[in-house]
C-alpha cells in the first residue's frame, strides 16, 4: 500500500501528466496528504444521484437480456443536487452517487475505495464494490446505503470516502477503453457470462 509520501509523489506526477502519475481533479491538497501520515486520499461527494424507483417490478433478475436492461434504466431516477443543498438518505434506502473528483489511474496503480469511519459509525455505507482497476478513468460510482436508524443528510462536496492505493509493478494493462470516463453515477450493465449460460442449459 502506498504511504502518504508516495501518494503525494504520484499526485505530483499526475499533475504533470506523467503516465505513471495519479491525476485527481479537483486536486486534493498534496501538502496535506504528504504531512498526514495516512495512507489514503480522501474524496468528496459529487452532485448527481441515481435512485431506483419503487415500482411494480417484482424482482431484479441477473440473467436479463438487453430489453430488460432498458426497463431497468427507466426504473431509475436521476437527481442533481447543487452545492449548498442536501440529499436525505432514509433508513434502509439505497442510492448511487459518485465522487466529486475525476480520477485517472495509471496502469501501475490499483486500489480500493472505503468509507469514512465517522459516517460508517452512523450507519452510512458508501461502497460495496470497492476495487479500482489500473487505468480507471472518471468519477467513482458510490453505492450509498443507510443501515442506521435515522435519516442522514448528505451534502455534495462533503468528505465521503477514501481510496487506498497499491502499486502494480511494471503494470501495462488499462481496464478502461478510450472515451469511457463518466462524471455521473452509472448503473452499469450486467455482462454476459457464458459459463453461467452453460450451467443453466437443459442438457
Amino acid at each position: 500500500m502506498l504511504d502518504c509520501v508516495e501518494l503525494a509523489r504520484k499526485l505530483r506526477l499526475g499533475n504533470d501528466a506523467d503516465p505513471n502519475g495519479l491525476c485527481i481533479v479537483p486536486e486534493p491538497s498534496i501538502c496535506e496528504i504528504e504531512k498526514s501520515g495516512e495512507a489514503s486520499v480522501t474524496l468528496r461527494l459529487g452532485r448527481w444521484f441515481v435512485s431506483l424507483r419503487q415500482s411494480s417490478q417484482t424482482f431484479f433478475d441477473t440473467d436479463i437480456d438487453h430489453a430488460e436492461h432498458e426497463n431497468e434504466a427507466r426504473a431509475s431516477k436521476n437527481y442533481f443536487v447543487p452545492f449548498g443543498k442536501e440529499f436525505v438518505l432514509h433508513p434502509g434506502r439505497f442510492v448511487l452517487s459518485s465522487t466529486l473528483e475525476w480520477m485517472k489511474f495509471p496502469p501501475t496503480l490499483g486500489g480500493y475505495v472505503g468509507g469514512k469511519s465517522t459516517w460508517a459509525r452512523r450507519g452510512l455505507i458508501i461502497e460495496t464494490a470497492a476495487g479500482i482497476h489500473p487505468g480507471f478513468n472518471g468519477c467513482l460510482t458510490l453505492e450509498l446505503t443507510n443501515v442506521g436508524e435515522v435519516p442522514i443528510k448528505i451534502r455534495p462536496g462533503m468528505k465521503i470516502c477514501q481510496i487506498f492505493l497499491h502499486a502494480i509493478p511494471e503494470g501495462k494493462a488499462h481496464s478502461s477503453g478510450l472515451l469511457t470516463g463518466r462524471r455521473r453515477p452509472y448503473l452499469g450493465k450486467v455482462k454476459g457470462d457464458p459459463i453461467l449460460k452453460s450451467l443453466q442449459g437443459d442438457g
Partner: protein
Amino acid sequence: MPILGFLLRSTNTRNSFEAYYAFSEIANSLIGSDAKVIFSSEWDFSPITYPMSFPALPSYVLLGMPSLESANALVLPLAGHELGHSVWLNEDLESRFAPDVDEGAKRFIKANWAHFIEAFDEHKDRQPTDEELADNMFIKLTISDISQLALYQIEEIFCDAVGSHLFGQSYALAFHYLLAPSLGFDRALEYPTLQNRAEFIAKFGGINLADHGLSNFSNEFEDRWPPMTKRQQFHSSAADTIGIALAEKMFGCALDIVSRKAASFAALPSAQPGIVRKFENSVPAREPRSLPDIVNAGWTYLQSQKSGIQETDRGRIEWISELVLKSIEVLEFRNRTANA
C-alpha cells in the same frame, strides 16, 4: 403560461446543470447581482422560437437550450445569445438605438420611394420630403412599423454579438452546428436572415473562422422566405437594410459592454491550449479560468480529432461533454473554495 412551462422543463436531468453557476456568475457581472438565471431545455425545434426576456421580469435571465441537445455541452455558447437579450433590456439599448433605427427607416423610404409608392399606392401623389416623412401620420405609421421590425432585428444582432464576444469561436461553431444549413421553416421577419447573422459574426465577431474550416461562413446557411405582400416585402427589406447598416455598431456596443463588465469571463485564446492538453489526456481542466475557455477547448479538441461533429460521432461528443461539464464543475468548486 410560458414561464410555468419553462420552469417545468428545467427539472429535466438531461440539462447541463453544472453550467448553471458559471452562467449565473456571468449574468451577475453583465446584468447585476440581482440577476436570477433560469436555465432549461425549452427549445423544441430551434433557438429562435421563444421570447427570452420579459419586461415584467427584468432581472430574470431565461437561458433556453434546445431540448434535444440539452446534454451537449458544446452548444452552451448559444446561451450567450440569450444573455444578450437580458443585457439589451437591462441597458435599455432599445431607447439608445431607436433614433438610429428611425433615421434609417426614413432614409430607406427616401432612397426607395418608387418601391414605397408601389407598395403603398395611396401615397403615390406625394414626395419623400423631410416634412412629409415627419408630419404625414400614415407614412409615420409605416416608419414606426419598419422601426419596430428593425429594432427586433438589431436586438438579435446585438445578442449574437454578446455571444461572439463572450465565447469567441465556440459561439460561431455552436451556431453553425445547430442552425446550418437552415432552420427548416420560413425566416421570421423579426430576425435578420441566417446568412446575414452569419456574415455579421464572421465580419465583426473577432473570430478567425478560416482556422476552423469555415472561411465562407455565411454561405453555410440558407434562408427560406415566406410568401409576402408588397408591403411586407418593403417592411422586411427596410428592416434588413437597417440591420446591415447597424450591425457593426451592435458588435461594437456588445464588445464595449462585455469588456467593461465581463472581461474576466470572456474567452481568452491563451487560456485554452492548457485545457485542450488535459482533454487530450482524458481528464478535466484543473484550473480553468472561465466557462468560455472550457467550451472553446472542447471544440478545439473535437476538431483536432478530425471527426467533426456529426451524428456518427455522437460517442465523441458525449465524451467531450463529460469532460467539459466536469471542468465547469471544477471551475465552480475552485471559485467557491478560493478563500476557504
